[in-house]
C-alpha cells in the first residue's frame, strides 16, 4: 500500500519573470503530483519551464502564484530558514556543473550538508564515508574536485546529495557535462537509489537520459504537454506507484 499523499504536489503554479519591461511566463498554471518512490524525468526544450519548476520543487524559489506541498508541507507558509531546513532534510540536489567546493576534498564536500543539519545525525564523518563508498569513490575521499574526472565529480555531488538521507533527489541535467558512457553509469546509480526508496526527479532534454525514468513529463511553453508512464522501464518502483 503506497502513501496516499503525493510527496510532491503542485497546484496552478505560475512563475512570471520580468526582463526589462517584458514579462516572461515561465510556468503557466502547472498542476502536478509525484508519488513517493517515483522516478520522473522532466523534459522539454530550453525555455519550456522545466528548470523553473525544478527551482520551485527544490524550494530555491517561490512561485508567482499557486501552491505547492513537499512532503505534506505547504511551501508558501514557510519562512527562509524553514525552507533552508527543508532543503537540508528532505531534498538532495545534483547539478549539471556539479557545484563542488574546489578547495575541499571529496570527503569534506560530502560532509557539508551534514554540518549544516540541525537534527542529531550521529557520526557525520562515518556517514560521509558511507555515502562516498555507495557511489564507488571510497578510495578517493581525499581527492579534490580538480583531481577527479567529470563522472567522479558528479558521483561526489550525488554522495553529497545523499548524505542527509533525503526523501527526494533533484537532478538538473546531471549528465549534461558527461560523456555517454559516464552518463549510463550515473543514471544506473540513480536507478539504484530510486530502488532504495528515494524519489528521483531528473530534468533533461535528452530522450536517452529520460528513458531511464518510469515517468516522463514533457513541458512546452510553461505548460505540461504530455505526462506518460513507461512501465517497461519501471524497476523497483514499478509495483508501488
Amino acid at each position, binding site marked *: 500500500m503506497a502513501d496516499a499523499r503525493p510527496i510532491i504536489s503542485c497546484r496552478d503554479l505560475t512563475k512570471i519573470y520580468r526582463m526589462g519591461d517584458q514579462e516572461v511566463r515561465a510556468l503557466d498554471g502547472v498542476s502536478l503530483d509525484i508519488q513517493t518512490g517515483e522516478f520522473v524525468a522532466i523534459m522539454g526544450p530550453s525555455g519550456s519551464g522545466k528548470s523553473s519548476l525544478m527551482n520551485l520543487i527544490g524550494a530555491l*524559489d517561490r512561485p508567482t502564484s499557486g501552491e505547492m506541498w513537499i512532503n505534506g508541507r505547504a511551501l508558501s507558509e514557510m519562512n527562509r530558514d524553514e525552507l533552508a531546513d527543508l532543503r537540508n532534510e528532505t531534498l538532495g540536489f545534483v547539478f549539471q556543473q556539479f*557545484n563542488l567546493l574546489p578547495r575541499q576534498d571529496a570527503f569534506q564536500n560530502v560532509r557539508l*550538508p551534514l554540518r*549544516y*543539519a540541525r537534527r542529531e545525525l550521529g557520526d557525520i564523518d562515518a556517514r560521509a564515508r558511507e555515502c562516498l563508498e555507495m557511489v564507488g569513490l571510497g578510495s578517493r575521499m581525499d581527492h579534490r574536485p580538480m583531481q577527479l574526472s567529470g563522472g567522479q565529480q558528479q558521483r561526489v555531488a550525488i554522495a553529497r546529495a545523499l548524505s542527509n538521507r533525503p526523501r527526494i533527489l533533484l537532478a538538473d541535467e546531471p549528465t549534461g557535462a558527461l560523456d555517454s558512457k559516464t552518463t549510463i553509469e550515473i543514471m544506473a546509480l540513480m536507478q539504484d537509489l530510486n530502488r532504495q526508496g528515494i524519489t528521483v526527479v531528473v530534468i533533461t532534454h535528452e530522450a536517452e537520459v529520460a528513458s531511464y525514468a518510469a515517468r516522463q513529463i514533457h513541458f512546452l511553453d510553461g505548460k505540461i504537454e504530455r505526462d506518460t508512464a513507461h512501465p517497461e522501464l519501471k524497476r523497483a518502483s514499478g509495483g508501488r506507484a
Partner: protein
Amino acid sequence: MKYGVATSSAIEALFSNPMRSLLTMLGIIIGVASVMVMMSIGEGAKAAIEKQISSVGANVLTLQPGTMNRGGRNQGGGSGRPFAESDVAAVGDLPFVEAAAGILSGQANAVSEKANWVTNMQGGTASFFEVNNWKVDQGRTFTEQEALGGAAVVVVGKTAAKNLFPDGNAVGQRIRVNSVPVEVIGVLESKGQSGGGGMGQDRDDTLVGPLSMVRNRITGGNRWVSRHVSRIQILVQDGYDVAEAQEEVSTVMRDRRRIDSGQPDNFMVVNFADMIKQRAAVTETMSTLLAFTAAVSLIVGGVGVMNIMLVSVTERTREIGLRMAIGARGGDILLQFLLEAIALCTLGGLIGMAIGWLGVLGYAQLSQAPMVVSPIIIATALGAAASVGLIFGFFPARRAAQLDPIQALRYD
C-alpha cells in the same frame, strides 16, 4: 547557528589567498601597532606620574617662604622670611593636620674618609620621615629624644651615600659636615628625581639630621627669626579635602604674620601632588590624541576589510548559492562571512601587536621613557581589531546572507 562549519569555512577562505589577506590586513596591522605603542607610552607616563605622586604624598602640603623684593629686585623663590618653630606648632594644632614637620635646609660640605661632597643638609624632627613617607633602607632614623637633644647623627640619602661611601657600608661611619663630626645612623630608600622639596632636584642627594643640631652647629641661625625653619611640611588627615586644608593653612599663616586683607601672601602653600597631576593632564591629553589618530587608521583599515569582503562575497556568490541549496540558513552564511572578517582583523591584530611590541621595546631603548605593556593594552588592541572585523564585516556578511538562493546559484 552552526559555528563549526562557519569557522572552518572562514579560516579556509583566509588562507586560500594569503597575499590578498595580508594586504587587506595591512591597515589593521598598522592601526593595532600604533594603538599599542600610543597606549604604552601613555600608560608608562601615567605610571611614572603615579610614582612621583606617591613619593611626594597626595595629601601633603608644603609651606614655603614667599619671594622677597629687595630694591625692586625679586630675590627668587624661598628668599622670603622663613618660618619659626612656633609656626610649626600652630599649624600642627589645626584639627585636620595629621602631622606637621618644620624643616631647615641648606648647603653643606660633607667629608668622609674617602670623599668630599657638597650636598643638601636638612634638619627635621622625628616626624620628618612620617610626613615625607620616607623609610630607611639600612640602619635607622633618629628618635624624638635624639631630635630634641640635638644628637650629632645624620641619615643619608642614596645619592649622598653613594658619593661619600663608594665602597658601601655607610651606617656607623663618622663624617664631618661643615667641619662638625656626625655619625651616620641610616641610609634612606631612594625617592628619585623631582620630589617635594624643589622640583627637578635629586631628592636622594641629602643628609637629614635633628633640627636643633643642624641649626645650632651646621647651617646657623637666622638674623630675623629665632628657631627658624626653611619650610613646613603638613600631612593632611585622610579624607580631608586637601584644597580646603590649603585654604585654612593660608588663613592661619596670614593671621600669624598679620597680613592685612588686600595684601599679598608672603609665603606659599604648595600642593606638589596637584602640580604633578596638572602636568600629567597635558601628557594624558597628548596620548589620548595619539590614540585617537591610531583609531582612525583602524577605521581606514576596517573600510579596506569591508571592501575586500564585498569583493569576496561577489566572487563566491555561486558558493553561497550552493551552501544555501544544501541547507545553510541565512544566519549560517552571515556567521561565515562575519567570522571571516573577524578572523582577518584578529590575525592582523596579532601581527600588529607583535610589531607594536617591537616598537615599544625600540622606543623604550631610544628614549629611555618608561613604557608599559599591560594586559589591558593587549586586550584593548585585540578587542579593537576584532570589533573592526565585526563592524565592517557585518554589511558584506549580511549582503551574502540575503542573497536569493536561485540567483546566487545561477550567478556567473
